[in-house]
């Protein structure tokens, strides 16, 4: 256990009768890049405010470096919070902003400026110290906010969707940048986002949240390839969900009766199902294959609705018997025959499809 470890010990946070965070129980290791991923309103900010000390858990404890943080104010915790909207001070210069935490600690004017300039060098923005905040671009402001948070050398940096205000290109650039900064300073980063791409590319581990509940914790591979709940499967990455009833299970292999006929998938996490259980079978668009004929394992026939060209891939929208599916194919550089409006045969490998119990899907 290092000073940078964080333990959430059965933390629940309620506003009146509304439960914003429900029994969160997890350990974040020192030096880890840990993300909370979830849709808007699922309680991510609430959780972060609780770690930073702006609110106290209704139940449970928050421990930082093994110490119970109950009653310890935000200014006394070894955390620095970067707000969803950055919260830079508009009337101060960039250098004053960065040096504000030092000013608070009574560091002299000269030393403050020196440290601010050092930090500006670190975030690759030398010489902007005398500018006003509004004179910077969104990405530059972003970096200034990070520099300000790092000025007092916290053990833990808390970031609340800091990239959401940036345009796509900059967002992608800042992902790499954030990761680099994190590895350079070796701090624990707790990163909040509703963007699964961000979470997957940057994080060591991810906690997927839905409506206040942490549904799954794991590294990006596990979250993407082995989702444990229907919500995680549908929220992280593109996927197709086919509803059905279990008819049989042999080992990991589950057979479902679906509107598209009997289909086979793998029981995720070694679950056991009884015949008649309501389940989803999830299959990623890139795992669906076009077949020449309806024979063969796990094949069915459906209708191609329309095709879309996405540059690196081609997207085919399929629909029959009330089940809409998406199928992607890598762009090989050749234009395939236009399938829209025709019947197509589709199949997939049962080991690439996972069967999960019926429950709420993301965005449903």
């Amino acid at each position, binding site marked *: 256990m290092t000073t940078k470890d964080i333990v959430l010990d059965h933390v629940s946070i309620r506003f009146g009768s509304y439960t914003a965070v429900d029994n969160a129980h997890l350990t974040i290791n020192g030096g880890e890049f840990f993300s909370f991923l979830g849709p808007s309103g699922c309680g991510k900010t609430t959780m972060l405010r609780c770690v930073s000390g702006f609110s106290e858990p209704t139940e449970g404890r928050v421990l930082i470096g093994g110490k119970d943080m109950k009653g310890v104010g935000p200014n006394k915790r070894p955390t620095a919070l970067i707000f969803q909207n950055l*919260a830079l001070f508009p009337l101060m210069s960039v250098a004053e902003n960065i040096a504000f935490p030092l000013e608070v600690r009574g560091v002299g004017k000269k030393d403050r400026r020196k440290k601010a300039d050092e930090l500006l060098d670190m975030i690759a923005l030398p010489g902007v110290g005398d500018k006003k905040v509004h004179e910077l671009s969104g990405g530059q402001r972003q970096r200034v906010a990070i520099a*300000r948070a790092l000025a007092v050398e916290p053990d833990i940096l808390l970031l609340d969707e800091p990239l959401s205000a940036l345009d796509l290109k900059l967002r992608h650039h800042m992902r790499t940048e954030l990761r680099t900064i994190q590895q350079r300073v070796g701090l624990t980063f707790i990163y909040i986002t509703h963007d699964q791409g961000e979470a997957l590319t940057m994080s060591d581990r991810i906690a997927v949240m839905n409506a206040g509940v942490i549904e799954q914790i794991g590294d990006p591979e596990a979250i993407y390839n082995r989702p444990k709940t229907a919500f995680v499967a549908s929220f992280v990455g593109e996927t197709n969900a086919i509803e059905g009833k279990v008819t049989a299970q042999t080992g990991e292999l589950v057979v479902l009766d679906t509107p598209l006929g009997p289909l086979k998938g793998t029981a995720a996490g070694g679950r056991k199902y009884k015949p008649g259980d309501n389940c989803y079978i999830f299959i990623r668009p890139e795992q669906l294959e076009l077949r020449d004929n309806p024979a063969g394992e796990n094949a069915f026939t459906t209708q191609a609705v329309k095709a879309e060209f996405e540059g690196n891939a081609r997207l085919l929208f399929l629909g029959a018997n009330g089940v809409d599916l998406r199928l992607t194919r890598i762009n090989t550089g050749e234009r395939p025959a236009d399938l829209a409006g025709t019947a197509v045969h589709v199949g997939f490998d049962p080991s690439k499809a996972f069967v999960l119990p019926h429950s709420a899907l993301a965005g449903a």
Partner: protein
Amino acid sequence: MLALRTMFDAFKNKHGLGVACFIGFAVFFWALFLIALPQIAMLDYSFRFNLPRADIGGPSDVYTLENYAYFFRGNDGGFNALDVGILFKTLVAAVFVTIIDIMICYPIAYILAHSATGVAARLMVIGLIVPFWVNEILRAFAFRILFGATGMINGIGMEIGLWDTPIDFIRADIALYSGLTYAYILLMVFPIFNAVEALDRNQIEAARDMGASWWRVHWRVVLPIAKPGIASGATMVFMLTAGALAAPQILGGPSNLWFTQLIYQWFNESANWQRGSAYAVILLLVCIGFVTMMMRVFKVSIGEIGR
């Protein structure tokens, strides 16, 4: 002129020619007849002699600086210490009232904007507004009753043994200062509230997160945002306090004149409108000069106040 034209055209396109003409005329009428002309008439008055009716327009009705000179020299040609002293005292008192108002209203505005929610906030706003339904004179008399020798404050103070002979709050001008401070509280609260409300709560929390004390959060984060609001509130309170008449008449101590009372005396008791006008112009110029100077000192521009 060009700006006016484009404004008129924009208005015409949006609301039609009829409405635009009406608004244009109404604004013109308002600006000319209700603002400019009376002031110009006053200014004109202030440069004339106080002549009997028959001589007005006659050969002796010429422009003069006599009314202004009187303010400085008085009757005997020496320094008019009395009148200049009263102006000075009025200004100092107005500054004092303004400062007290800032000190009272800044916390109120801040709490209203950032801490009070729901019922508490609404009660606060109502508490601020309702007393102003009572008119100025009545309010002044209420203060007189409150602060009088047999008033509530003396009653309570003596009852619990804080002092044993009634304190003359009126003579000490405490009643006056309290009345004036109270009278313009709203004018101070709302501009500050407006400015502070724009402050993002996260900035306060960010400063707290970085370990800033409450004092520093206000000094470095909230106050700079509130500054234009304070400036515009202070300007209004200062101007209105310096120009107040009813409160000093009713609550002022017998030996202490407010400069407006002096003006009033010239107009009313001495029937010397010319000299009264000159005194009014002097008050206006001095106040404007003082406010401009203060804005320089505190580095506030007039544009910021307008926001």
